[in-house]
């Protein structure tokens, strides 16, 4: 399953909640303000790095770039564009939005 998260982890608990429901084969895509969850040096970084050990996490690069966070992305988080977003949706049997 592909899980999209569009809210910052310091604004809402969407990311933290999403992580509780991940199963083998799940992937997480951070979009919109959700890309703030992809950043190093934050209170939430450890939680994200821990999850990254077991699940692929992607971030929508145009949203990262729009917010000036290009140099702060956690190593191991894969950056995709909208075309990559489409591919991720196609590759997973379902997609769930964490709003």
């Amino acid at each position, binding site marked *: 399953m592909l899980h999209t998260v*569009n809210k910052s982890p310091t604004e809402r608990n969407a990311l933290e909640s999403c992580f509780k429901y991940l199963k083998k084969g799940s992937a997480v895509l951070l979009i*919109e303000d959700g890309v703030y969850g992809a950043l190093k040096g934050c209170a939430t970084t450890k939680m994200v790095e821990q999850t990254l050990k077991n699940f692929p996490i992607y971030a929508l690069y145009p949203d990262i770039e729009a917010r000036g966070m290009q140099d702060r992305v956690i190593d191991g988080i894969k950056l995709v564009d*909208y*075309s990559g977003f*489409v591919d991720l949706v*196609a590759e997973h049997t379902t997609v769930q*939005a964490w709003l």
Partner: protein
Amino acid sequence: MMKFGILVNEGPYTHQASDTAYLFAKAAIEKGHKIHRVFFYHDGVYNSSRLTEPPQDDRHIVNRWQKLGKDHHIDLVVCVAAALRRGIKDENLMEGFRISGLGQLVESGIQSDRLVVFGD
């Protein structure tokens, strides 16, 4: 080639949902996929208003959806109940959109290979 259904839960400009949905739809089409339907619910119905006048130097969200719908024969559907609540009616509906029931959303879930939700 896949058939995507898209659900837009928020109105133009206030949230990024409509923008992300549009850019996703555009990318999907470029990759050769089909967009079965874009369904506008909650404040998403405002994406169909004929009356929006954003600043000239910014993207025109309503027109953009209209053009995408027209160029690629996409069914742009606005939920009747949500629309009535918010004052979107045929008289202020942008051409290219249609007002219909929630059944169209369910049908999209049934007929599409993937249903992608964009919201707040």
